[in-house]
């Protein structure tokens, strides 16, 4: 009886498994979307499904080899889909090693196998959530935009807040304190306008425009302690190119950096951060909270006529969290004027070793600059290197670090030149960037082909933001605005 059962079981298993008899091998890379060839991935990432996009293929399959195991996955309409459970067990077994993928394509009755590629699975986990704003990539007109979050361990995306829950107004600049989902802030503009801060279960709505500042608060970065947030104030405009591969320019006519004291409801700045002779913008605190990094350029007016002269350097000033005071001198870490380039979005790894920034030809709105790439500054040696492995011919721009300093999420327009997508790159212990991979989707080709939004400001989050859009909307409607004080030190 046992033998019969065993025979039946074997027959069932054999009949369910799929195999391909390859007729020929060629030494060419297979065409797949997304390009997941030879990428380094975290062991807790969602399955990296991909489509075989070889022209004229009648059928396709992938041979998967890891840890001495071999199996074939048949592509359905070109889509290679790993089941969630089998992917998880594969990740568990392959951690620290490579999974070898060989794409096989059937054309005219002949199966051809292509040059194998690998998924290198590392034990360094990626933060489980990514928060981003979904917005049509024109930035001036929208109907719906949302701050959304995506579970990186599966495909589930949820909205933290959609502007349709308010008055259809712009929502922007979401940021978290140390990737903590419970400490978040973002801005709403026009109706229900204000900066919304959620911290330690406390909700606040701030009216951040003061008589002493040129605008409401803009680009934020939260101090590790949670007690301060660095912001900018800017007068921003946009202009269209008549003939340029960069479609649009976003420029400031004035920009200053200041720090918001969360408990005192007061914004503080200094002449070194708010000068009429310079544009200061895009601040970021060091992980130890003792330094404030920002970008600074000599002011040039009128705009946009002189916009190409705007070259932001990477600067640093001491910051004393005990009394919210600033140092007396500004250090220039990367002199953009000498390099004839312009720095934006400095972001420091939580371990304090590296500072990654975007570098374009001028200005600081690098997502509209196809030449913009990510660069890494070694904070111990001062060496600046381009992150060649993760840069492309198109724009690389906003980026954020994972909690363990091993993953970098960044926005790039490499795929179609307009709709910014979120990519992830592994940064090894030597600071080397590895080939990045696109945010996985169940059916990436179909999803991204019809997706009409850009992934704006991809920020790692260490857990799910539990506050619902409905709660935020209720608070936006009912909460009273707090006016801010202003101090110049």
């Amino acid at each position, binding site marked *: 009886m046992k033998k019969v059962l065993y025979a039946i079981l074997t027959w069932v298993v054999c009949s369910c498994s799929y195999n391909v008899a390859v007729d020929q091998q060629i030494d060419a890379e297979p065409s797949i979307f997304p390009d997941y060839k030879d990428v380094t991935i975290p062991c807790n990432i969602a399955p990296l499904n991909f489509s075989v996009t070889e022209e004229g293929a009648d059928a396709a399959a992938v041979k998967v080899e890891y840890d001495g195991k071999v199996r074939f996955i048949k592509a359905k309409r070109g889509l290679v889909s790993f089941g969630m459970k089998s992917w998880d067990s594969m990740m568990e077994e392959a951690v620290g090693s490579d999974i070898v993928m060989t794409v096989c394509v059937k054309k005219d009755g002949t199966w051809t196998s292509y040059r194998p590629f690998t998924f290198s699975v590392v034990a360094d986990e990626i933060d489980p959530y990514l928060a981003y704003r979904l917005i*049509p990539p*024109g930035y*001036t*007109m*929208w*109907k*719906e935009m949302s701050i959304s979050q995506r579970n990186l361990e599966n495909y589930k995306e949820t*909205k933290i807040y*959609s502007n*349709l*829950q*308010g*008055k*259809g107004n712009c929502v922007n600049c979401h940021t978290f304190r140390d990737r903590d989902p419970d400490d978040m802030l973002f801005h709403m503009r026009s109706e229900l306008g204000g900066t919304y801060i959620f911290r330690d279960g406390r909700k606040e709505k701030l009216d951040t425009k003061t008589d002493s500042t040129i605008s409401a608060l803009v680009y934020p970065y939260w101090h590790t302690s949670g007690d301060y947030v660095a912001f900018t104030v800017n007068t921003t405009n946009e*202009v*269209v*190119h*008549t*003939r*340029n*591969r960069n*479609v*649009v*320019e976003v420029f400031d006519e004035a920009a200053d950096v200041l720090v918001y004291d969360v408990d005192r409801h007061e914004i503080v700045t200094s002449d070194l951060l708010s000068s009429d002779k310079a544009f200061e913008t895009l601040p970021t605190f060091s992980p130890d909270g003792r330094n404030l990094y920002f970008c600074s350029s000599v002011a040039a007016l009128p705009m*946009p*006529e002189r*916009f190409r002269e705007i070259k932001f350097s990477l600067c640093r000033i001491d910051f004393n969290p005990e009394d919210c005071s600033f140092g007396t001198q500004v250090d220039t870490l990367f002199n953009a004027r000498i390099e004839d380039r312009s720095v934006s979005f400095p972001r420091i790894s939580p371990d304090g070793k590296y500072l990654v920034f975007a570098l374009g030809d001028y200005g600081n709105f690098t997502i509209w600059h196809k030449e913009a790439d990510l660069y890494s500054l070694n904070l111990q040696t001062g060496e600046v290197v381009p992150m060649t492995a993760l840069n492309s011919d198109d724009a690389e721009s906003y980026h954020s670090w994972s909690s363990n300093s091993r993953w970098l999420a960044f926005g790039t327009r490499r*795929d*179609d*030149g*307009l*709709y910014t997508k979120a990519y992830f790159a592994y940064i090894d212990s030597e600071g080397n960037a590895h080939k990045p991979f696109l945010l996985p989707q169940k*059916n990436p080709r*179909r*999803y991204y*082909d*019809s997706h*009409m939004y850009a992934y704006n400001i991809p920020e790692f989050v260490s857990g799910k933001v539990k506050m*619902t*859009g*409905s709660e935020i*909307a209720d608070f936006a409607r009912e909460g009273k605005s707090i006016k801010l004080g202003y101090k110049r030190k």
Partner: protein
Amino acid sequence: MQIHTGLILIDDMEAKHRNMIMVAAVGILIAAGVHLTQEFRFYNIESNDLFLYDGAELWARLLRTGGLATVVSSFLTQFMRIPFAGTLIATAVYLAVWWLVAKVMRRRTGGAVMDGFSLLPSAFLFLCMENDYYRFQGHIAFLFVMAALAAYVSVPKDRMRYVAGLVLIPVLYQTAGSVAVVFSVAALLWEVMERGWKGLAALAYPAVSLLTAYIYVKSSLVSDFEHALTPFMYYDWPSTYFFPAYAWAMIPLLLLAAWAVNCLKLKPSFSKYVSVFGLALSLFLAGNFYSQVHSRNYYRMIQEQYWAENEDWDKIIKTADRRQPTFLVSYLNLALAHKGLLVQNFRYYNPQDLSSLMYPTPNLKTGLSLQSNVYMAWGYLGSARKAAFDGNVVTPGSCHPRQLQALVKMNLVMGAHGVAEKYISILEKTLFYRRWASSMRVFLGNEDAVKADKELGMMYASLPLTDEYARLDGIVGDMRDIHEACPSNVILSQFYELYKILEGAE
């Protein structure tokens, strides 16, 4: 046997035929009215959305609140680009709603006395179309609710009907949206009328609909309670919504009226006149409100847009009014330029100042379409591409087929082939734009083919020789750059010449 039941007199075959002829005549009258008043609105509605033949996309839409109504609406509106299709579809919806409302009322009154009044909801639905932000989905959702109500009242057993009501409300909420509230109120009234005090158990219906709305809002599936409980859900922009609200209110009001008619025990011969009066009142209200809310200028704008997009320049010129307002002259100027008549005919039409050459339209769907269409014809591609992109974004379904087509062309000319391919892929999933989209693939990665094409080649040649920021030197400066790059661009040349003349005059 002879039964007198108001409008429909069931007597013999001859009477049946007479009634059928009468219903057909009213149907034709409605269709004619709809066509005369809304023909170009249907073309405009067609551009509000794209129905993509893509399982995943359809499934995603179905899962949204009111998803089934959205999908059905989107499927139907794709045909509205065909002449008369919009009229037929809308008329079919109005007649179906009328028939379903009459069916419910007949069950209440046992006769056809309310048949004429049953047209009132359709009359108000017809008026909803005058608001550009109203979505046709609202019509379909209302139809769903009336079908559900007609089915509900036909369930003979009280307990079974009660359970059906409780189940139908959340199902309707998910498939049709906030209009499920109408069902809950109408079903409650029905039960009270049918069963007296016992019917008050149906108070659970509004409670269930409120609870469902509450859950949807708190789960962020619907943005707020205004969307969750009112016709606001079927609008694309904050707007007044009294006409759909009237249509909604008509259902409980008609039920109350039917109950009153039952109490009055009207004579069958009198019932017929009541019904005819109801019909006349419905048509009168539709006509009267229409004349009050109809914007001739806006309608003219979407007429011109349709003709411009179909390159029917003669129609625009022939139907133009010499004294038309400034914002209506932009398409006329374009038509005249296409005929090579702009410079010599410009002074024939009012107004004749600089602003009327290309009126600065508001950044809404129609205005952005105008900017995109005119600027693209000039070869002013940087601004045209931005207007087309923004016009696409503010379109209710976020996919405006003709703006997507424009974006494909302009991105091909400006070397942004990646994004052009994205839009081509989307249009290839449609029924009516599939072939055009596929024909554009030949230009991908092939600049020589772009240059060689008559239309794209002219745009390519019109790109300024050097890059500038648009409007830095005023729009005339940009026109000068285009003119210098491509003197053979006859559309631009005429506008440029006039701009110079008018600017000098001012």
